């Protein structure tokens, strides 16, 4: 069955182009890591150039797949037994869009970084790793095969590790890098296990083939039987879905693995924009969109609830942060939760849409925040001031000093919060309506608890408005809270401004839909195919009903969300406006209430994990090493010492008894000899007499 589907597919022009687009960042990595230090600047410019080329190519590809055609090239990677493992490129509409997104944002970040990082001693290394990251990220998008996706998946984690740990000599950065990789690894193990289930069941990991194989499999009673007759318990079908989702949970920082993302803000800000806002964390969402057709209803529900919960938790945690980047990080977690929720409720198109809009406005936010940090940093440097350039307690009133940054920040904030006319409104509206429609459909099936998902989603809308309003108010309004000279705090170079403006433009709703109030009019969603689920036994009609419901309710939902946004903004203006008590006392703020602590400490997840997982693991590990020393080695040593003691006993016995016996015999023989010697006096004839006499005596005795 699978064999004929796995035949190699020839290379077409488009896939060749995609391959070139894939290889250019790798080339950039090799160039930057291999270049002599003197040519670091030139190498980074070359890297930007490669990215330009790459994004041009991805635009060409995008044009070619616009009408829905797909391109697939495949070759055999290695053969095992009779099974061939293939490797190949697969490009469809979402994939091409994603490639464009990644290359384009990567290009912008490259450009931005040439300014932002120019004084950094690790400049060259930084660009090399950016290249590696872009390469791996594109690998995930282009691969046609779950195993290959996993390869790039891990590589993305690796390059993220390298980039978070860019300032490795600072202990927090080193710790954060480690944490990010390990937490990602936990998710990856789930991913591997999901892959393993698919492999055990279908003997292939090629996605296109898997879809066919999945639809030809069936549920028979309690077992899940493929057309080849391989049967597994149906629980493994859910397990597979959850396993792959686990990979996404790790990479996209969902509950319970979201703890690494806030720490990852220790990396350079452009990296945070590229990796930890726009692209890498979105890889989980993209992966889930790719495999959504393989997931069963239970797995989808878990995904939906996890997504909703994470959206809520992230938003809560974002409410009280002081670090400008951490607010954005928690916001990212929250938005990613939205996206995965979208996957879970059968609206992957909407999820991808949100991914796209989010990628642009969140990149804009991060890079604008970077611009703020950079400006403050320069300012501090110029006036020999020592303060934390990322702490919002040291900011305020920057609106006048950094006008371009402010405008871009404001636009992106409005997009994020979901104000009509901005991109976020469209995508968020799509997700909210879908969630509402889904829970209605599920409730009609008797699953009333599913209303929790839209509740989370709508609450998060309010919370988003509150924390973003708070941030904008605290950073850009009021007075500069740090005491210092008035001069020297100014907008950074034109390159940075250019990048910000480009990203700001993409946050406008008009770019995505001509009708800024109706997401259905968006060109993006028309490109998204509605996935036809191939999982046997899946109640597809539920998802169909959900979609129909969403269509009906979207006007209402849109209105509700506008109301909620206004509510949130109102609250935040009330609480955080300049000259309100909060803003005035903000700089020296200390002493939190419990609820604020809960938010600030991100639900106490870190201490919880330390208590529940890390500490027990370390004590297990110490126990293992004690076991090693105290039991196994002790056993060996005791055996060794015991055998030596035994050997001594045997030795003593040997000397005392065995040797003693021998010595005694010798002694006895000697004495007898002395005795006998006394008979010997050299007279032969006496001997003869004795001999004959004895002979006679013997004969007499015998007779």
């Amino acid at each position, binding site marked *: 069955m699978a064999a004929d589907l796995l035949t190699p597919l020839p290379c077409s022009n488009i896939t060749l182009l995609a391959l070139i687009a894939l290889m250019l960042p790798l080339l950039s990595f090799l160039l930057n890591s291999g270049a002599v230090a003197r040519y670091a600047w030139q190498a980074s410019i070359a890297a930007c150039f490669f990215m330009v080329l790459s994004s041009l190519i991805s635009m060409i590809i995008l044009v070619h797949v616009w009408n829905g055609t797909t391109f697939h090239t495949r070759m055999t990677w290695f*053969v*095992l037994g009779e099974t061939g493992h293939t490797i190949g490129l697969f490009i469809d509409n979402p994939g091409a869009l994603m490639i464009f997104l990644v290359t384009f944002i990567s290009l912008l970040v490259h450009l931005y970084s040439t300014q932002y990082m120019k004084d950094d001693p690790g400049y060259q290394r930084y660009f090399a790793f950016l290249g590696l990251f872009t390469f791996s990220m594109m690998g995930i998008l282009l691969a046609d095969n779950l195993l290959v996706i996993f390869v790039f*998946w*891990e590589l993305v984690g690796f390059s993220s590790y390298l980039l978070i740990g860019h300032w*490795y000599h600072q202990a927090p950065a*080193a710790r954060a890098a480690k944490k990010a990789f390990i937490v990602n690894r*936990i998710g990856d193990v789930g991913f591997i296990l999901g892959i393993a289930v698919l*492999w055990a069941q279908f003997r292939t990991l090629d996605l296109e083939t898997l879809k066919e194989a999945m639809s030809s499999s069936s549920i028979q009673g309690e077992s899940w039987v493929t057309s080849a007759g391989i049967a597994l318990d149906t629980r493994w079908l859910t397990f597979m879905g959850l396993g792959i989702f686990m990979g996404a949970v790790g990479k996209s920082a969902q509950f319970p693995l979201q703890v690494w993302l806030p720490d990852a803000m220790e990396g350079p800000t452009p990296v945070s924009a590229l990796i930890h806002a726009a692209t890498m964390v979105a890889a989980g969402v993209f992966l889930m969109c790719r495999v959504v057709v393989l997931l069963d209803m239970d797995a989808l529900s878990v995904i939906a609830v996890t997504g909703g919960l994470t959206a809520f938790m992230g938003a809560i945690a974002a409410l009280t942060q002081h670090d400008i980047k951490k607010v954005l990080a928690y916001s990212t977690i929250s938005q990613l939760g939205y996206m995965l929720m979208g996957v879970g409720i059968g609206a992957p198109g909407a999820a991808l849409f949100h991914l796209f809009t989010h990628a642009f406005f969140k990149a804009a936010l991060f890079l604008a925040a970077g611009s703020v940090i950079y400006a403050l940093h320069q300012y501090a440097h110029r006036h020999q001031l020592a303060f934390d350039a990322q702490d919002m307690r040291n900011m305020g009133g920057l609106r006048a000093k950094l006008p371009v940054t402010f405008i871009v920040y404001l636009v992106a904030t409005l997009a994020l919060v979901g104000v009509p006319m901005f991109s976020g409104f469209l995508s968020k509206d799509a997700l909210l309506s879908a969630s509402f429609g889904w829970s209605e459909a599920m409730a009609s099936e008797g699953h009333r608890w599913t209303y929790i998902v839209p509740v989370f989603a709508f609450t998060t809308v309010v919370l988003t408005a509150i924390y973003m309003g708070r941030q904008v108010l605290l950073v850009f309004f009021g007075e500069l809270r740090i005491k210092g000279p008035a001069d020297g705090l100014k907008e950074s170079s034109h390159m940075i401004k250019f990048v910000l403006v480009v990203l700001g433009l993409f946050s406008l709703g008009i770019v995505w839909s001509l009708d800024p109030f109706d997401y259905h009019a968006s060109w993006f969603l028309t490109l998204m195919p509605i996935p036809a689920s191939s999982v046997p036994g899946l109640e597809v009609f539920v998802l169909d009903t959900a979609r129909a419901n969403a269509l009906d309710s979207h006007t209402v939902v849109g209105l509700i969300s506008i109301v909620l946004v206004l509510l949130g903004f109102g609250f935040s203006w009330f609480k955080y406006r300049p000259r309100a008590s909060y803003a005035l006392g903000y700089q020296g703020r200390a002493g939190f209430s419990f609820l604020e602590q809960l938010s600030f400490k991100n639900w106490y997840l870190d201490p919880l994990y330390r208590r529940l997982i890390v500490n027990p693991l370390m004590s297990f590990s110490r126990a*293992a090493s004690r076991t090693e020393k105290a039991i196994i080695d002790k056993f060996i040593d005791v055996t060794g010492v015991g055998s030596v003691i035994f050997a001594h006993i045997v030795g003593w016995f040997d000397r005392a008894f065995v040797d003693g016996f021998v010595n005694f015999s010798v002694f006895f023989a000697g004495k007898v000899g002395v005795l006998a010697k006394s008979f010997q006096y050299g007279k032969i004839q006496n001997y003869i007499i004795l001999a004959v006499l004895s002979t006679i005596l013997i004969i007499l005795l015998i007779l």
Partner: protein
Amino acid sequence: MLQHHILTILIFLPLASALVVALLPKGILNLSKGIALGVSLVQLVLGGYMFVRYQPSPGVHNINGFQFSERIDWIRLDLQGLGKLSTEYFVGVDGLSISLVLLSIVVLLVGVIASWSVEDRKRGYFSLYLLLNASIIGCFVALDFLLFYLFFEFMLLPMYFLIGLWGGPRREYASIKFFLYTLLGSIFILMVMIGLYASVIHPEATAVEMGLVGAGEFVTGEIIAEVQRLLQAGEIPADQMVKTFNLVYMADPANLVPGSFLDNDAVRMVMNYPARFLAFLCLFVGFAIKVPAVPVHTWLPDAHVEAPTPISVILAGILLKIGGYGLLRTAYLIFPDGALHYAWWIGLVGVISIIYGALNALSSQDLKRLIAYSSISHMGFVLLGLASLTAEGVSGAIYQMVSHGLISTALFLIAGVLYDRTHDRMIENYSGLAAQMPQYTVMVVIFFFASMGLPGFSGFIAEILVLLGAFGASTINGLLPKWMAIIAALGLILSAAYYLWTIQRMFFGKLHVKIQHGNNLPDLGKREILMLIPLAVLTLLLGIIPSTVLDLVNDSVTTFVDVILSTGMKNLQTP
């Protein structure tokens, strides 16, 4: 010509050179390094030739399926009542061994380069090293159990002295522990070997003995089949049976003497336990010590920590693989029924090794000890893959052996680099080395990540194959439960944890070295780069193009799995 003697040259060239080195006059002792290097280079060329000329083919249980094989009668003795003894000088490679032979050649070459700084008693060191070289290659190519065992035991001697004379402060303890452990293993193997010898006939020689063909004539397949039929019918008198140590004949149940100790038709019981199962267990324990599997692994950390760097390299890079290879070649092929019967337990031992080794690595304070425990953890994957008896699992096991051979070689070299500079290996005594030794840090990061199974490096392919195999075993042959693969996968998290923690502690943060030589930390020298770069390239190559090795291995592994499953099932079904 070369085709048939290449393996013999591979074995005896170092042996002869060892003699030459041992006899070198005092004035030109520096030549000993050169000789060792020259031998390794020649072996590399021969290995390259083998790699190019090797035609993927099964081998495994087909006596004529081995390549580069050379087969000469070695000892023929008439033991009266015990039948006739026949041992052969039979060497050859198939897919199970070729990759390991090539690995050994590479690692031994790297070992010579790493030994370049040895100045103390050079003559002894290099002649022992060459001796080790010969016995390692011999072990991988021998196809006669006696020959295999001979090389296997022969390896202990130079190893014991190399650790005991050139090792660290606790070298005596370590070397004796190593010696006793492996000797214990050897005893188990020896017992089975003798039992097997009494139970297996040499069909060709028996045909000659019975007068079915004349001496020196070609023995056709029909005649062999006839001999085997007569044997199973019990129509060959005991004094006409020619007993053999040939591993390939041992693997064929048709050659088992009916009613003999290890015959599978009439199951002998030893202490109420079937003798064949017991024999499999003995072989398993014997080789598991070498692998090493928990709980018979404690020689490894000590031996590694105390051994000089090149010897750690060989120990981790090659010697551990002999355990895995021995399991494949002897235990599994000769007792497939045991392999099936104990698959669950072997898998369990593998899983325990993975987790236990990783936990111990996590709490290790000593860099070399950490790497040693990681070896235990990674070799657990070999056992798990073998136990699964799927094409993926077994290929993965072999791939893991090759990959771990390269990676652990590099890891021990890395530990050695630091030890050479400061004579201190405690992790807590270093921090922020990345600033002082950037190239070194790059290498450390590369190999640490390679070892934790980062895609793009060989370790990933190996581990994913093993996991796929172990997981798929439940639907393919039902030998392993799924939770084993799941637990084993957790080992991946642990390995990331201990390696990354080590990197964070030693290389990141502020530069600080708690040792007197702290300021004298030069970056990698040319020789050190020369050792590490090829390993990095090979690891990457195997990670990106796994077919380099898998193409060599695949046919043999497929046959191996088929043979084990079918023969094993058949053997288990006979009462």
